[in-house]
């Protein structure tokens, strides 16, 4: 199959792109992972020409209420596709009947100076996303003004560490 550049994507790719969405909320006591598929990574196929962020925003709004933030937090190569990871924050009422589990902590996946990590688990992608959100809360006025006090207290424990992703060889 001939490779075809996909217009409008934030990065140059010639192969398939998938979106992986982590829907999170805060019930006032703790952060929760939820979603229309239950408390797990929610996979969405991209249609090619549509910008992944626009597609994810559309799919999120189609499947739930109370959407507060939609943000791309990382990418990786998995199962012969570029996987773009998104963190979606919804207000507690937006969870409705969707199942949820508390968000635990995890060690980040570490790359070497030149190579990607051999394995990246969903819990590590979510840990990275939460740290990313903590960083945005400090640096981005829109995010800072959107997140609740409960979120801000929670994110104080997720230290952004953008320069610690390298391990020594």
């Amino acid at each position: 199959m001939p490779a075809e550049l996909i217009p409008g994507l934030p990065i140059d790719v010639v192969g398939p792109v998938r979106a992986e969405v982590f829907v999170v909320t805060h019930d006032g006591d703790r952060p929760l992972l939820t979603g229309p598929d239950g408390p797990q990574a929610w996979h969405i196929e991209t249609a090619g020409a549509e910008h992944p962020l626009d597609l994810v925003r559309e799919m999120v709004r189609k499947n739930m209420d109370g959407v507060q933030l939609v943000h791309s937090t990382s990418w990786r190569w998995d199962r012969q596709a570029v996987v773009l990871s998104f963190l979606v924050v919804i207000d507690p009422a937006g969870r409705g009947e969707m199942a949820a589990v508390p968000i635990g902590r995890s060690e980040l996946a570490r790359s070497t100076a030149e190579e990607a990590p051999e394995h990246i688990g969903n819990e590590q992608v979510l840990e990275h996303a939460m740290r990313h959100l903590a960083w945005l809360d400090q640096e981005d006025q829109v995010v800072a003004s959107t997140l609740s006090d409960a979120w801000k207290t929670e994110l104080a424990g997720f230290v952004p560490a953008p320069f610690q992703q390298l391990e020594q060889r």
Partner: protein
Amino acid sequence: MNYKLACDCGWETEGPEEEIVAATQEHGRQVHNMDVTHDEAMAMATPAHS
């Protein structure tokens, strides 16, 4: 004959062929932005033993 069909995400459906295909196609569009053909749906289905 009834069939069972489970999506990778954990969603499941069970029923006659036309029902599970329609349900799977709806689930694919609504939740995963995927167009699932009749054959693709049935390729994932297994007979339900009730």
